[in-house]
């Protein structure tokens, strides 16, 4: 995984760094992963035989705000990458922390939403909506959480001086992953919350 530092003498055939190509392939594979869960959600939409139903539970304004928070975290991620590419470590740290913070805010919102829904009787077992909703959005939340861990790892490494302008690819790869998870949320938010 440490190709970046030695890339000087190892040219690749495509011109893309090995790790970057790996990340794109991984994200391509993830499309099928989320695609399958989303397909299962759509297949089972309106097939719950008992409540609670989506219309009883969804709080669109609340989820819109948390979606907005997640989208904004993509902006801060871009700023973090741009900072390290200009060699500005301090700024990168600020934006990394901001991204991780916004991500945490989103996950907390999701935790709150899950708890609320649970209180109103929606469980994995309650009906098809509970099954498909919790599993789909839960896997997305897990992805965001992994993203936060990656961001914080990079932050800590940068404090030790291991993130530099030369290996800014580390930040770029974390960014690719982060943006992907955001895009997936846009699809989920549209198909699950908005189109009912």
């Amino acid at each position: 995984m440490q190709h970046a530092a030695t890339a000087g003498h190892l040219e690749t055939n495509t011109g893309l760094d090995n790790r970057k190509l790996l990340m794109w392939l991984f994200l391509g594979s993830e499309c099928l992963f989320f695609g399958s869960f989303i397909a299962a959600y759509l297949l089972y939409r309106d097939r719950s035989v008992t409540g609670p139903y989506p219309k009883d539970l969804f709080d669109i304004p609340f989820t819109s705000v948390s979606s907005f928070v997640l989208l904004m975290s993509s902006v801060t991620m871009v700023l973090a990458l741009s900072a390290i590419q200009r060699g500005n470590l301090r700024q990168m740290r600020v934006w990394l922390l901001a991204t991780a913070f916004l991500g945490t805010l989103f996950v907390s919102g999701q935790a709150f939403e899950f708890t609320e829904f649970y209180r109103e009787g929606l469980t994995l077992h309650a009906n098809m909506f509970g099954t498909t909703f919790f599993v789909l959005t839960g896997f997305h939340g897990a992805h965001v959480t992994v993203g936060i861990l990656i961001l914080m790892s990079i932050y800590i490494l940068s404090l030790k001086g291991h993130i530099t302008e030369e290996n800014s690819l580390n930040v770029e790869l974390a960014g690719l992953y982060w943006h992907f998870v955001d895009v997936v949320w846009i699809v989920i938010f549209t198909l699950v919350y908005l189109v009912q």
Partner: protein
Amino acid sequence: MAGATYTPRRVTMAEALRQAREDAGTYRGVWSWIATVDHKRIGVLYGVTAFFFFLVGGLEALLIRVQLATPNEHFLNADRYNRIFTMHGTTMVFLVVMPLGATFFNLLVPLMIGARDVAFPRMNAFSYWLFLFGGIFLNVSFFTGGNILKGDLGAPDAGWFGYAPLTLNRFSPDNGIDYWMLGLQILGVASLAGGFNFIVTILNMRAPGMTLFRMPLFVWMTLVTSFLIIFAMPVIAVALFELSFDRLFGANFFNAAAGGTPLLWQHMFWLFGHPEVYILILPAMGIVSEVLPTFARKPLFGYPFVVFSGVAIGFMSWGVWAHHMYTTGLGSVANSAFGVSTILISVPTGVKIFNWLATLWGGSISFKTPLYFAVGFIAMFTIGGLTGVTHSIVPSDYQQQDTYYVVAHFHQVLFGGAIFGLFAGAYYWFPKFTGRMLDEGWGKLHFWLMFVGFNLTFEPMMVLGLLGMPRRIQTYPDGYGWGFWNMMATVGAFLIAASILAFIVNVIKSLRTGDVAGDDPWDARTLEWSIPSPPPPYNFARVPQVHALDDFWHRKYAEDPAGKPVPVPAGASDHADDSHGDDGHGIHLPSPSYFPLIAAAGIPLIGFGLIYDVAIVAVGAVVTIVGLYGWALEPAAE
């Protein structure tokens, strides 16, 4: 994620590398295998492990055949019979044919494209360890999945494609299915990691001049297979997650009472499952496409057609899955559409078969064991492919569904196809990696026993299927006329077992006293034969410069005006020098690491934890995270 410069104290890159190489020198014996990141050693590990599982799966097959040899047999009770055929199928697909494909990817791809290793050597080691642990996890279920103290086997019992609702708690209450779904999940991650690795390796690490259309066909098939893996595995992962949520946490994905439909499982399984069958067969097709030109002493006929038909198979394999599901009542429009797509996918397959035949046509054929297996592959695979086409016809398929005709068909492609192709590869490349030739006499004995045994086993199954014998029945009454054909199949199965013994004898004998192979015993065409046997750890002392398809052949032979090969005088071929000496000193090699092993070791613990106790999940997660961080932070250079 960390930068390569991370070390406890600040050192230069050169120092870190020297240190790493010294460390490499300190691993000896078993430890040098445990910490290895060398693609050739990982390939050997894959091969030995998969062969061991091949013996396990073969033993299961023999048990099945003994039970079915005669009517009203009670050698295995119905419960054990279910578990054993489930494990036979699961083992052969996920623990034998897939990893045997990975064996050859590992051994050959870097050598064939002129690279020093794969793109991510440690991820490669991680794939192997995860495969090993996943295989063990799956097989442990025999002892722990049920109540072994009462003499009950505990293995999964719902067939290798695990149809819901058979797999739900209500119908399969013991832990066998838990082991199955979590074990396959683990093996899926291993395959995914391998798939990513080989795509990046092939797209990014080719030697100068090795354009995509100068790559050996085996490398092309590896590329297509790897793409199928990275897109098919997430689909089965989701299906297995859904099953896991149903079984472990009471979700409703396949619970009809709550509005779910078991049919979703079938769709997702076969959306993965049909690309999967090409994941199993394309590596063998790649091997055969290397073996035939070498032994016919002719270039592969219609190279671009074989490449593009492989790519076409890759794409089309996504549009045929519902031919496994005609009888589920999808409706005549869906059935017809999938029938047509299934007929169409036989076209690129047929293109390949004709190209292989044309490769042999007019060649000066040298009848060595690898060629026997390769030709056996073509013949058996053609029968398998044609019986597959008969399944595409919907009304005919209604008749064949769930009969032994289907069993015969897929063994015809997966054994007669994949296994014959893989053995062709084993005989062909054994000298390259051991330095010794396999014995021709034993090899031909192996081939003939296997060829006769194979046909004796599976052609009677075609007859049985057409006579109406359903698959997966534990026994059958006398008087249906099935006894004779079943007995033949059982005799055939034991002949196959005898052929495998011949192979084992051959390997042991040849490793000790086989003829020394030399660099290029077959007068072959691809780059791996241009270096010593076995290859040195750094593969190529000089990075090869590639000027043509079959470059190594063109270094050895020019063509006279009639198109016949004429040897090039020694020393006349040009080599590019990249300033490294021939002794391999100063070549940058990835340093060994045991972190992939640690990262992989935590994952089956998570699996056990999900079955028995959440506390173990935490332990497994910690082990894996320690492994991953150690991996990311160690001062290794790849």
